[in-house]
Each structure stands twice: as C-alpha cells, then as structure tokens.
C-alpha cells in the first residue's frame, strides 16, 4: 500500500466520531460543528455557515462502491486551523449530490474539510478523492470504531 495517504496533522485534533446514529443532515452538522468548535478548529459561526453552504452547494458524492460520502466545507473565514473532522453514520443520512438539485445520496461517511487555504492542500484533497475510489478503504472507514484504527487507515496500513 502507499504510505501516508493523508497527512496525520489534518486529524491532530481528533475530531473523529464513529457510528453515530443520526436522522438528518442538520443533526450531522450540529454534532460535528459542536465538536469542531470545542476543539478550537472552527469559529462559532461555522455551523450556520456550513449548513447554508451545503444547502446552496451540496457535497454528497455517490461512490462506485455504492456508498455515499459527503465533504462539507465552507469559506476560510470560519476556520481557525486546517483540520478534517470525520463522522461515520450507523445508518445512511441523505445529502444532496454535488452539482445536482434533485439527486440525493445516502451518506455513511462525512469528512468536514476545515481549510484555511485550500489551494495549498491540493495533494491532500487529491489523495482523499483517490481514497474514495478504493472500495476496501471505504469499507475500512465504515467498520472503523476507534482513533487508532482510523489513523492506520489514513496512513495506508
């Protein structure tokens, strides 16, 4: 396997939430925004901004593996430091498909991209997208239930 798929520093604040049982998108945002705010990654205004952003520009992606992921993100002004928040969902939560106003994607994995200057994060973003194309990695994310295993996945182990 390739080493260091995603730099660990993007997960240094350990905003990693496993197998959450939530009913809708806004619950997802409420839970993960609270965690990101608690760890100082985002500003207070983040939750509102990300909800609005997702409504206008949805980020759900249907993958070949049949599993949906979402990569919610918003403008740098709401972010204190570069970080990715992760949440896996016990049962799928509906997000809208990126670039569509009608299609919905049942999402099991959420990666909240908190980026201060995304154009400098090209490698990370590309690697993340690459990971999404690997069925075994997606399955590993879904079955993962602790921080250590999570870090192993992003390190390609």
């Amino acid at each position: 396997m390739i080493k260091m798929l995603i730099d660990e520093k993007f997960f240094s604040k350990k905003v990693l939430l496993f197998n959450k049982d939530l009913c809708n998108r806004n619950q997802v945002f409420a839970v993960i925004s609270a965690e990101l705010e608690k760890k100082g990654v985002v500003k207070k205004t983040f939750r509102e901004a990300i909800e609005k952003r997702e409504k206008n520009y949805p980020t759900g992606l249907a993958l070949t593996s049949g599993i949906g992921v979402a990569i919610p993100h918003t403008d740098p002004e709401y972010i204190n430091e570069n970080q990715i928040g992760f949440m896996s969902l016990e049962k799928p939560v509906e997000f809208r498909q990126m670039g569509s106003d009608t299609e919905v994607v049942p999402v099991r994995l959420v990666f909240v991209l908190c980026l201060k200057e995304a154009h400098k994060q090209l490698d990370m973003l590309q690697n993340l997208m690459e990971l999404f194309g690997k069925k075994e990695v997606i399955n590993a994310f879904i079955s993962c239930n602790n921080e250590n295993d999570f870090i192993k996945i992003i390190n390609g182990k």
Partner: protein
Amino acid sequence: MKKLMIMCGSGVATSTVVMGKVKQWLADEGLESQVKLYQSKVAEEVNHIDDYDIVVSTTLVPDNIKDKVINGVPLLTGMGSDQVFEEIKKEIEA
C-alpha cells in the same frame, strides 16, 4: 488560446482538485499551450461566464448558464472522468 474556467462553490476546495486533474490531463495530451486555466467561485463568475471559452463546475449553476457549463463532479470521483475530458477536448478543438 482557449480560456478554461474551473469553478466550485467556494473556489478553493473541489475546484482545486479538478484543476489538478485537468492540468495533468492537459499535460498528458500535450494541450497545455492551448489552454489558459482560471479558478473561481460560481457566485463571482455567473455574470461574466462569456469571458471564458470553456467552463467546468463541480456545483450547480443557475439555469441561464447551464448550457455552457460542463459538470466536473466525475473528475472528483473518477467515475466517468473520460467523458468529461472528452467534452473538454471537443471545446478546445472547437
């Protein structure tokens, strides 16, 4: 030289990924010298979309400019990216 705009909601995240993919593809195809790349957010470009020859977007665009815009989402997931490159190529050669 064709002007190719790549845009997303914020102009920083997914458009960055698409930009990387398109750059690589242009290099592989030997088309780099024929295309100038731009990157921005949808909201800033809707009113001067005609400044560009080719527009690729990962987010939804208003109906009035829909016809001009190529959906770039397949370039993110890799599913169906060949078709997107095909469309872009057609526009470059147009």
